């Protein structure tokens, strides 16, 4: 496993790109133009209209984001040695919302970017010197995550269209995986099987949704009243105008996000970091391109309802960035191309956001699918991360490791989940890693050889 490659290859230009995107992100958050946490966006409406004070707004953002920074972003970065949006953008938006001036936000953002890029290299180097290599063991999470993630469309289809279609889609995905694996043996294909299966599942989900809406429309059950659309235009119009007025800022943000995605040290989705760490940029692009579908309706509607956009937009810049990285151009060309592409994509998104919102209003099943997609991602990833955490525990400490990690997970459940469920496993692995190292140090634990 070459996951450690990421950290070793962390070059100075990559750190500068990280600091740059964090600085820009903080400046946009300072003006309440963009936040990464979709939960924060609705609260920004009161902040923009002056009903919430800056410190209170930052406190809300911190409360909603803390679990995802410490529970998801940090362990994921340590496990993969690749940066992710939860670790970079969530703290950046808190700092930005806290900063009274734009320049203070910029400095704070750049500082956080430096902490992340240099801190990650330092942390992985220190951890590899410890007797129990718990960061190395976190790499055993990649198997379950990469393979089970492919099943999220099956779960979405089952929840939205029932048992029969669920079983059919599972069978279809299984056949595709079987075929691709065999094709690799017979004809030397080098496609990552779960990515293809996942793409097939998503296509099935979309076709089912469109067919359902089309049938309803023909039957006359689905009439979007002009009155409803007028209400939405009235409510969303000023917010869309606010976004358009600041399009230059958004294009600057797009530049930064695309450059960091093209740098080969950043994975945007939950499973992508593992592929980026292995250098499989094309696979990562396929994964995140499909994932976009789950987030378009969410991001577009919360943006229209609040007047603030998402830090990574509808996240289509991630796959575009990775694809630019596959070209293997010299660094200045890669960054230049990414900058232009990022600015263009964000510009187009801002100009199109009102139209996309109106269009989605006419296809309710598609909007519905988006909720089920995100639920499917949560359920499949939840299982994968839990199992991966136990596998990591086993690698690092055998039965003792599983006892500590499994115990901490169950304790978190019983206590009413102070740590987000999805983050509980990786967080427990890190706690167990520190504990096992301390126990080794005082002679209570003998590290398992060749961890």
């Amino acid at each position, binding site marked *: 496993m070459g996951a450690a490659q990421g950290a070793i290859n962390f070059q100075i230009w990559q750190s500068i790109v990280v600091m740059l995107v964090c600085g820009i992100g903080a400046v946009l958050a300072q003006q309440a133009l963009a936040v990464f*946490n979709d*939960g924060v966006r609705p609260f920004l409406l*009161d902040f923009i209209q002056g009903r919430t004070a800056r410190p209170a707004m930052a406190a809300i953002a911190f409360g909603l984001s803390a679990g995802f920074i410490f529970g998801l972003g940090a362990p994921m970065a340590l496990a993969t040695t690749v940066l992710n949006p939860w670790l970079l953008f969530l703290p950046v938006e808190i700092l930005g919302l806290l900063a009274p001036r734009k320049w203070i936000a910029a400095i704070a953002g750049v500082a956080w970017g430096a902490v992340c890029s240099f801190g990650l290299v330092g942390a992985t180097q220190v951890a590899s010197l410890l007797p129990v290599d718990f960061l190395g063991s976190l790499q055993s999470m990649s198997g379950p995550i990469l393979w089970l993630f492919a099943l999220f469309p099956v779960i979405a289809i089952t929840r939205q269209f029932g048992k029969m279609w669920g079983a059919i889609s599972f069978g279809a995905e299984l056949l595709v995986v079987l075929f691709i694996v065999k094709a690799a043996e017979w004809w030397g294909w080098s496609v990552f099987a779960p990515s293809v299966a996942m793409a097939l599942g998503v296509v099935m989900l979309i076709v089912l949704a469109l067919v359902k809406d089309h049938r309803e429309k023909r039957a006359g059950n689905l009439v979007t009243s002009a009155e409803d659309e007028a*209400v939405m235009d009235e409510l969303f119009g000023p917010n869309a105008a606010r976004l358009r007025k600041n399009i230059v800022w958004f294009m600057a943000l797009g530049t930064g996000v695309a450059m960091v995605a093209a740098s080969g040290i950043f994975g945007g989705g939950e499973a992508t970091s593992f592929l980026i760490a292995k250098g499989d940029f094309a696979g990562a692009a396929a994964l995140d391109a499909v994932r976009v579908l789950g987030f378009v309706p*969410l991001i577009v509607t*919360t943006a229209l309802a*609040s007047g603030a956009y998402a830090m990574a937009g509808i996240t289509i810049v991630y796959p575009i960035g990775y694809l630019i990285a596959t070209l293997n151009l010299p660094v200045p060309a890669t960054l230049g191309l990414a900058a232009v592409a990022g600015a263009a994509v964000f510009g187009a998104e801002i100009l199109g956001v009102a139209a996309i919102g109106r269009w989605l209003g006419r296809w309710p099943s598609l909007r519905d699918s988006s909720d089920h997609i995100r639920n499917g991602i949560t359920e499949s990833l939840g299982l994968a991360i839990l199992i991966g955490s136990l596998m990591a525990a086993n690698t690092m400490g055998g039965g003792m490791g599983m006892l500590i990690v499994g115990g901490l997970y169950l304790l978190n459940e019983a206590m*009413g*989940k102070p740590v987000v469920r999805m983050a509980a496993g990786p967080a427990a692995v890190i706690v167990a890693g520190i504990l096992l190292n301390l126990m080794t140090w005082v002679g209570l634990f003998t590290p398992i050889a060749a961890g």
Partner: protein
Amino acid sequence: MKIITGGVGKAHVADALKPLVRPEDEVVVGSDMQAGMALRNGTADYYLGTCHTGAGASLGVLVGLLGSARCHTFGRGVPSAEAVAAAVGSGAVALGFAIDQIDDVVPVVWGVLDAQR
């Protein structure tokens, strides 16, 4: 009473709710946009939204359509019956909570809604 569920865990919330409600009650798995419209024109009584934080995807559109006074989030926690009663009593009809707490939150919320009719 007509309740629309929405957000990431909408199917799960409806599953948790259906065994609890009376025969005359209606639980609809819907969307935030549809629920916002239904609550505005009075064709639905309550909206239960879910997402990872309990606040964003679950209530984002509702805050825009109904105003923040009629929306309330319990965040990532499990509220007490008193907290639910206080929120509903102050006019909240769109309630948001976190997907990993659905099984614990739904019975509490339903208990209050059921007692209030």
